[in-house]
């Protein structure tokens, strides 16, 4: 989908009241709407929005919503049930009206009172859902419904417009009447005074502002549905949308400078120098240590702390009983030997600074959740704190809040993401580096002895560095080792050939972070297939069942996000019985994708042993849709290579014996 990111300033001049109750009214459908059975611009769609309308008036303190939907298939009937979430005690949902119109024009109004259901309640915070289901819905029906959300006179609520929907939108109209006196509005206890909006808009679509009334409107037609593809980035960050803000800032630079400075002060305050920190680092680093050694030693020290994001945060009562106070500074974290990911990151910041290393905090998005949008002027899109240290003339990004992250490596969710960082002077919008494929390596070794019947015995070793090691180590923080073993065994099932049982014997290095994680695996079962005189083994032991991505999908509309770059290296040795000879082994294969990835497969026969080595290198985490054809071609070729088999042929005497045994009566 083509969208552009933008930010605009809207200045409210008018002070007269917006006409009340401009709710969309139910209007008779057109003959074309009644009779249509498909939408040529959305072939195969289960339903489409014929029309959507959202109206917001902050002077009258309401949002209203109206939709007209055409049901085109049975699946489209699912839209007959609508639910409207709201914050109980702050909002009310009123004026719910709905009706179904059959394709012959018959109108069936909703006459059942909508249900107001609790979704979740914690303390005094409660989220409810108003749920209603339209009557007598058929394929061909038009569903119409509307509702209003109201809030108190002392509140305003500028809207977020989610323009893109799971279904095609034929036409939509949005309008927003901002509060008449912007000077009265406070945001975070500061006067606002301005209204801005940012958005990602389809080509030709814009927010229009009436100069006198300051009414903002947006109209669009023929908006494609939200795409659904494998390996998508957080799609919510890429689809058409508009966000309005009451703010005191005129542009994003001003906002991020101000918000960044505020955030930076909070970071510095938490990580402020103290005697406790000084004493702590004195016990960790030696005066003669280089900055690099100091940085590592401090990292080692904070990695030993209890990271409560993986365990549990202590309650006030527990802290009180233990004679500890609520965490307010890095020193508190050190004293308690416990803190959240962000708190531990800031403790590292404090310690690094305390030993004289230039260090900065950076707060970033979680790439699994959203992509940083600098035009969206909100600190709430930023999730996690990382630390940048300057060692020599080089800056290094560290992820001390991510328990067991290797020094110098970011969790993939924190790589290639935007955020705000501290600098020597002020703050700046920044992007974190991508991971290095050399730091995300999986080595798989297997040594397998196969007998005449295809029964195997053997062992395997899976060594992991980087994200895969981090995955299992973090799982071990929230589960005991037995549970991690069970999960690992389940993952092995998809890795080894059909009929083979792979059982983890033990891990090495599960509870540390600065070495490779090794899994020692026992192999047994039955492999391959056989005929009278031949037996077949999977050429690529660890990938014979793999389903490579992208192989069948011809087209791509969104960025491909494979999380991180990586290397997977396999070395497998089959020992086959003396009375078999290798008739065929996997052919040498090389699949290069210049500047992106590479794949090689080699086999070597040595008497009764066949060695197969496979190497897969993916040097990228993300690929643009324009490169999709090359990506698909790469995986298609790998899939072909991975399907190869080893053919063993029985020595003539054995083949004859087998043949006569088969011919014997009763077989």
């Amino acid at each position: 989908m083509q969208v552009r990111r933008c930010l605009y300033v809207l200045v409210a001049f008018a002070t007269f009241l917006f006409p009340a109750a401009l709710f969309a009214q139910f209007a008779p459908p057109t003959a074309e709407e009644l009779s249509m059975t498909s939408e040529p611009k959305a072939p195969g769609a289960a339903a489409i929005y014929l029309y959507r309308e959202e109206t917001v008036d902050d002077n009258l303190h309401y949002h209203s919503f109206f939709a007209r939907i055409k049901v085109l298939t049975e699946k489209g009937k699912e839209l007959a049930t609508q639910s409207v979430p709201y914050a109980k005690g702050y909002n009310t949902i009123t004026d719910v009206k709905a009706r179904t119109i059959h394709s012959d024009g018959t109108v069936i109004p909703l006459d059942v009172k909508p249900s107001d259901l609790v979704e979740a309640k914690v303390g005094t915070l409660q989220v409810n859902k108003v749920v209603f289901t339209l009557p007598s819905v058929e394929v061909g029906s038009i569903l119409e419904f509307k509702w209003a959300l109201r809030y108190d006179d002392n509140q305003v609520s500028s809207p977020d417009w989610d323009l893109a929907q799971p279904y095609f939108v034929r036409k939509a109209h949005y309008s927003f009447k901002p509060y008449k006196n912007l000077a009265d509005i406070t945001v975070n206890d500061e006067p606002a005074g301005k209204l801005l909006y940012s958005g990602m808009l389809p080509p030709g679509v814009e927010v229009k502002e009436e100069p006198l009334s300051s009414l903002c409107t947006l109209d669009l037609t023929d908006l494609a549905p939200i795409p659904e593809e494998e390996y998508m980035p957080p799609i919510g960050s890429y689809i058409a949308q508009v966000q309005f803000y009451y703010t005191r800032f005129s542009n994003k630079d001003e906002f991020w400078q101000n918000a960044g400075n505020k955030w930076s002060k909070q970071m510095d305050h938490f990580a402020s120098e103290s005697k406790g920190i000084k004493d702590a680092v004195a016990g960790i680093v030696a005066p003669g240590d280089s900055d690099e050694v100091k940085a590592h030693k401090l990292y080692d020290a904070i990695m030993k702390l209890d990271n409560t994001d993986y365990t549990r945060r202590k309650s006030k009562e527990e802290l009180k009983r233990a004679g500890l106070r609520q965490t307010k500074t890095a020193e508190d974290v050190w004293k308690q030997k416990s803190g959240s990911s962000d708190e531990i990151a800031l403790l590292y910041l404090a310690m690094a600074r305390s030993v004289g290393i230039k260090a900065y905090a950076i707060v970033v998005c979680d790439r699994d959740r959203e992509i940083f949008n600098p035009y969206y002027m909100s600190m709430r899109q930023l999730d996690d704190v990382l630390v940048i240290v300057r060692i020599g003339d080089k800056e290094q990004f560290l992820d001390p809040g991510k328990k067991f992250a290797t020094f110098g490596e970011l969790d993939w969710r924190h790589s290639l993401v935007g955020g705000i960082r501290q600098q020597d002077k002020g703050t700046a919008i920044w992007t974190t580096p991508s991971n290095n494929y050399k730091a995300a390596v999986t080595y798989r070794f297997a040594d397998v002895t196969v007998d005449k019947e295809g029964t195997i015995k053997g062992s395997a070793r899976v060594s992991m560095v980087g994200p895969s090691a981090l995955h299992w180590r973090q799982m071990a923080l929230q589960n005991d080792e037995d549970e991690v073993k069970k999960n690992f065994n389940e993952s092995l099932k998809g890795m080894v050939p059909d009929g083979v049982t792979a059982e983890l014997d033990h891990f090495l290095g599960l509870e540390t972070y600065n070495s490779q994680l090794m899994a020692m695996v026992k192999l047994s079962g039955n492999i391959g297939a056989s005929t009278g005189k031949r037996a077949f083994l999977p050429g690529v032991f660890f990938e014979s069942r793999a389903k490579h991505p992208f192989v069948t999908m011809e087209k791509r509309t969104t960025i491909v996000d494979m999380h991180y770059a990586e290397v997977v290296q396999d070395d497998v040795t089959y020992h086959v019985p003396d009375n078999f000879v290798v008739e065929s082994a996997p052919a040498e294969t090389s699949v290069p994708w210049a500047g992106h990835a590479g794949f090689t497969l080699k086999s070597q026969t040595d008497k009764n042993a066949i060695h197969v080595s496979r190497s897969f290198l993916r040097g990228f985490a993300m690929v643009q849709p324009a490169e999709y054809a090359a990506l698909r071609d790469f995986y298609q070729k790998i899939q072909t290579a991975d399907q190869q088999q080893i053919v063993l042929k029985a020595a003539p005497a054995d083949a004859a014996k087998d043949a006569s045994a088969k011919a014997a009566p009763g077989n």
Partner: protein
Amino acid sequence: MKLLRWAWMVGGITVLPLVALAGPIFGGRDKQPVPQWGLDAYKTRTPDYAKDAASVILYDDYLETVDAQGRAVEREREAIRILKPQGRNRVCGVSHDVDEKINYFRAWTIGADEKQYQAQEADFIEEGDTGVPIMLSTNKYRVVHPPAVDVGAVVICESEEVLKPYIQEAVWRIQSDVPFVYEAMEVDLPAGRNYAEGWHRFKGVKPVEVSPNHWRWEIKDMPGLTLRDVPSSPELAVLLARMTVQWGSAAVPGTDNQWRAIGQWVTTLEANRPDPSPEITAKVQQLIAGAPDFYTKLSRITQSIQKDIRYFVVMRGIGGLQANKASDIYRNRYGDCKDKTTLLISMLQVAGIHAFYVPVDHRRGMVDPEDPSLVGDHMITAIEIPADVHDARLKAVVEGSNGKRYLIFDPTDERTPVGNLPSNEQGGFGTLAAGSSSQVLSLPVLAPEANGTERKGAFTLAADGTLGGSMDTVHSGPEGGDFRSFLKYSDEKQRHDAWERMVTRDVPGAVLESFNVVEPDALDLPLEFHYKLKAGDYARKAGPLLLVRPRVIGSVAIPFNDKPRTVPIDLTATGHWHDSYDIALPDGYVVDEMPDPVNLDTDFASYHSTISAKDKMLHYERDYTVKKVELPAEKQADFRHLEGAILSDERSTVVLKKQ
């Protein structure tokens, strides 16, 4: 749709916090020390048999205090020791609906360091039942996450709840995925009230009368049950032991009498709900006009409900059990299982056919004839077959203890034709709610011919290993119904993606070139699926050889492993599957070797497969029949042998050699 942001206020006026709600006490405001029973439970040693569990329930004690009207107040006391980090996820909770009231709910922790903590109000969370888009439920679940829940800690919870006035039974779940060291159930009945008990997958224990008409059952050392790494097993809920105690009309001696009372209760609850409206009457008369026989009459009505009534669940208090009125269901064109049954009974009534409610569970084995209760989550229909009707299309027929024949039909299943029955419901039990004739019914297991798939493929193999060709498949019975349901609830892209996924499971890299579904309106006619595919490198080159797997598409293998098992084997469905594939071989290649045929016959299934070659054509044919839906664990050796043979046949290879 998402929640609005709430960050801004007008004119600096601060939004006031919500006024604290008056009502039940959930902890915090009624600070209390750990009760003595909790302290005693805490002292319980962790038994050796619990060492592999994530947590162990040291103590679980229910007290049902029943008033003169039969309404119960339930008190639960529970103590859980956390044994592993993942055991922290085990929480205490109380489920409650509009007709219920939590009197109190308190929780404490005795930490691994022996310090005691009480859960505060902020530690309690209330979750609604709003996660299912096609359900409207007023049920809520209050859970507590008390402090200091680390490995070694003991969580102690106590709650009291006034239960629904119309439910006069308690289901005591005596087994879980973690072990119980000690558990007890007490029922305190008013003078003159009786009780009846039933046990599911447990031999039972005798109660002690601790005071007049106040009964107590105790169980010690109940092992936990998990199905991890137990492939092809029934669902866990089915296998967990439980006890039911009745104190209402079903508190009578003898399971038959208890089932009769339960059925009578359902009959009364749903009385008059099916009364037909003039619109229903008119519709039925229109539908059955000119119908030549009973089956046609029936199928026109059932198909109208299956096609026109959208599935939407309404669970509001007693509405979880009692259907809406037929007139409302018909007008709104939506309803859940009990509503669809109600409308069906109503429409059949107009047509002069008697039909009855049959509460069941969608999990085979959940309803247990030895444990009379309302346990179940689904409603289907029993249609009385007139004595003079004998029609082979009516397959799902059972005979009641009254000698009457009933056709069992599920109107909620929108695609399985009347006469047949969804596979998951076959072999289970249900309550025939027919007033004084109520009884527990054993649901039928249909013959293999009532379900299955016929696949035919014609392919051409190129010398470079590319396979191209067409597939024609015919799906009947519940399997056809599942296919139709998928078609109903998917759009074109989803269908294409799903079928491509299905094909690429067997033929990696295959591309669907075209597909076409022939879906007859009549549900009892099979559904046809025709598609064309192409796959590069289907046959693998190995020097001068070309290796071809003749079983191109479709697997009938059921997951199995070699570990000893104690739980039954779920074969899913009876049925008959037949595959026939022709592969035209490339010029210059001849068959050098072929796998042997497979012929296996057991009392529960048979499997026969052959591969032959003639001229330039390779032919694969197999026939698979399943005659039972479930096997006892003792049959595991036979099951493994069969599945091993199927798996081996499915991956067998034909060797082609270049001439």
